[in-house]
């Protein structure tokens, strides 16, 4: 069976990459194929990485508060490229009041500080439809 392919990306100007790196490694240890894009990726770059890598999942790490700008743009681009079946999840600092909006535009899971890695692994395994 093909391994799940996950693109972990850090959009925006923020450089705090501890969370992105820890989750990248945890997903890899859980048997997924992980592609970490590195820092300061624009939504365009992330979508193109997802396309190129044939990703099943995009995981965004955002702590700076820029999610309300970055995520809608990313979701729009995914739709344009016919990648709306790629599951998008976010980890980081997201105020409660912003969560419904993000879910409305198609973000599947939002993981706040303190979430166990296993919970994220289980969520991805439980919700993803592997692309064929």
């Amino acid at each position: 069976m093909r391994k799940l392919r996950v693109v972990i990306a850090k959009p925006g100007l923020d450089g705090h990459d501890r969370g992105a790196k820890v989750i990248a490694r945890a997903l890899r240890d859980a048997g997924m194929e992980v592609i970490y894009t590195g820092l300061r990726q624009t939504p365009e770059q992330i979508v193109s990485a997802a396309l190129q890598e044939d990703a099943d999942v995009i995981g965004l790490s955002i702590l700076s508060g820029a999610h309300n700008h970055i995520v809608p743009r990313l979701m729009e681009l995914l739709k344009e490229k016919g990648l709306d079946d790629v599951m998008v999840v976010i980890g980081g600092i997201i105020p409660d009041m912003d969560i419904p909006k993000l879910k409305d535009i198609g973000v599947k899971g939002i993981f706040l500080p303190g979430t166990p890695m296993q919970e994220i692994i289980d969520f991805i395994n439980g919700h993803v439809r592997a692309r064929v």
Partner: protein
Amino acid sequence: MTYNQGVKTAAETDKRRWERETLEPTLRKSPERAETFTTISGRPIDRLYTAEDLEGIDPGRDIGQPGEFPYTRGIHPTGYRGKLWTMRQFAGFGTPEETNERYKTLLKAGGTGLSVAFDLPTLMGRDPDHPLSLGEVGKCGVNVTSLADMETLFDGIQLGDITTSMTINSPAAMIFAMYLVVAEKQGADWKKISGTIQNDILKEFIAQKEYIFPPRPSMRIITDIFAFCAADVPKWNTISVSGYHIREAGSTSLQELAFTLRDGIEYVQWGVDAGLDVDRFVPQISFFFNAHSDFFEEIAKYRAARKIWAEAMRDRFHARSERSWKLRFHTQTAGVSLTAQQPYNNVVRTALQALSGVLGGTNSLHTNSLDEALALPTAEAATLALRTQQIIAHESGVANVVDPLGGSYFVEKLTKDMEDGALAYFDQIDRMGGMVEAIERGFPQKEIAESAYRFQQAVERREKIIVGVNDFVREDEPPIEILYIDESASEKQLARLEQLRKTRSQAAVERSLDALRAAAKSPKTNLMPPILDAVRVYATVGEMCDALRDVWGEYEEVPII
């Protein structure tokens, strides 16, 4: 003379006897809670420390007295009996007007210094109208685009009367130049003003990742600042060599200590190589450490740091001035230890962490607010954080005596172990050719990523307990009030920038940027004078950084996971 003289003459040490006669029967009846005990960094901790553990530590040579070499017990002979630490609360958000108001509140509440948090566009040398600034303006700190913003930020605050710390790194020279010009316009004397710019690019490459230019030209900006300040702004702390971010990125306490001090040595080496006299620029170097949750390990870290620095400056660089030997440091409690769950618990965490900083002899302190795992702090939460320091200072009594833990078997042994561990890392990094080379190889980055992952695994396995997160969890948590930063800061800063571009002399700006490019191409020219010229004609941070990008290019890291 060593502590244990006389102890080992007996055939059986007293500790052995105690273990046999007293400990073993107890353990048979009631075993301990765990097989091994470790610090938050994973360092094994023994059950009991006695005089035997101090073998090899010479109290006169290694611990000494406060105010004397090697300063293990502190740099001031009177500790905090003379002067308390500076209570310096890091703050900044939104527009310069909003932050200016917060500063005035903090000063009125008894804060004794300012500390500026800049937003990500400013930190990354991008103007608010750059595409990468989208959604980031004013979010994590205050936006400062040009001298006009700096004038607003310090409106009504006399720069001659306070000290200001500014957390700025890649564009440190530009922001510092803006501060100097504001001071000049207020009539303050550059020779008398004091404060700090973080200006520590090595830890950006290692941990915080707010770099712009490649390592070598970045180091040149720093040595130019050393030379400029030694001559013109002699009371300014030209750099705050920072372990804080290294720790937040997941390092152990030892790695924080080792990489930070080795970074410090790297800066001194580059200064010396640039032809500067050690005793003229080293006294202006300061440090910045994290106060994490493992109380004694942190205290040992601060005490070891002072000793390592004093010996490195005297023996490695042959500094003769005591001012070069004395390591002065700021401490901030560990942001990464704050939990979004049960946020009031963070007040207690912060108080304990702050206490470790004080018992370790910190020279200034920032205490985090209870809501910082969720957002930037509200004014109320920020005030409570400051009150935490005031209670330690004025009620607990710990500031009445110098280095109260000196001579503790445990603390002295841990201090020695931290020192030995750091020196072993120094050897490794020296063999690579220095810190710049080690960073280019990804060595500290890999070490930190490894520690971060190990810690997270320990939390998941519940070998490390975080109250409210993996134990003592509460399901029905009431939400707390948080500071929500809307888009108005971005709109205001964009409008202000547009206005600035209309009113300033574009020709003067272009000329100043050409001069800056020319200076960047000529390694012997100090960059501060052309940067000051550009600031005076209201060139923006983004424009000045772009001029340098034209010459030096941008750094891109190879991501390591």
